[in-house]
């Protein structure tokens, strides 16, 4: 009788363990749209931060949900995904926001309009890059 109880207990543990393991393995990606931004900043400021001290800016912004406000310089579509470039005072650099597939349909954004987006900051090349971006307003 006792052995049977132990076996049943072990089986339950194994099932629960497998379930938790499976859940962890399939852990969903961060949903930018439903999360609130970690940092809110203007396109000018974030670019200035990166171009003056990239290492410090990396520790501050990488992997964070950043909400950026700026003026739209360019809207384009690449493989069905929208890319919005926000202009800055800098001649070379800008903030490039790659939109999520859901956000890429019915794009009504126009060049020159002021826009706020939030996305995950992945770093700085010539421009500050945000991925999985969604339009806030």
């Amino acid at each position, binding site marked *: 009788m006792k052995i049977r109880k132990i076996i049943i207990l072990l089986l339950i543990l194994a099932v629960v363990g497998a379930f938790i393991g499976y859940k962890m393995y399939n852990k969903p990606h961060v949903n930018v749209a439903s999360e609130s931004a970690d940092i809110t900043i203007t396109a000018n400021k974030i670019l200035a931060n990166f171009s003056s001290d990239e290492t410090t800016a990396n520790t501050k912004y990488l992997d964070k949900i950043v909400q950026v406000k700026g003026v739209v310089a360019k809207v384009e579509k690449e493989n069905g995904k929208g890319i919005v470039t926000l202009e800055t005072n800098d001649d070379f650099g800008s903030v490039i926001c790659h939109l999520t597939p859901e956000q890429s349909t019915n794009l009504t954004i126009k060049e020159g309009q002021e826009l706020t987006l939030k996305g995950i900051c992945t770093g700085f*090349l010539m421009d500050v890059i945000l991925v999985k971006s969604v339009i806030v307003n």
Partner: protein
Amino acid sequence: MKTIYALLICLFLASFTNAQDRYLTKKGTITFFSESPMENIEAKNNQVLSIVDVSNGQMAISILMKSFLFEKALMQEHFNENYVESDKYPKATFKGSILDFENISTSKTKIKVKGNLTIHGKTKEITIEAMTAKKDDVLKMTGEFFINLVDFDIEIPSVVKDNIAKSIKVSFNFNHEIYKK
């Protein structure tokens, strides 16, 4: 490291003599693929910066490691935290030249590219083949090659070593546009 890098890019940009010769893309694609008996892993980066000067064949590519997006969040986490340590090494770079750049034409041509690839803080010289075509204001470059994880000191824990290939297939697709001020 950052200053050196900025300086290199500046030098590179400054070394262009004729504006008509520079081609640039900020939205190049690099995909990597690991095939193993346990599972296939794929990650895609759509934000690759690549600059080519067709007058001398020089090329510079810069890649943000955190821009590689995986199907599973857990894989992406492991990739960044344990394998490539992207907080410590946020970028991968390639600096080199197209050996037979004078062959680039409007039709599809096979070319050879040689240079230094830096991933995870380790640099290795590679020579790869690529397909290219230059039409109007667009310079296309595509190709694929394999990299060995051991060359870049990327360690895979023994528990998951059957899940990840030792040799990773890297594919790239760049649509450079002519650089205008």
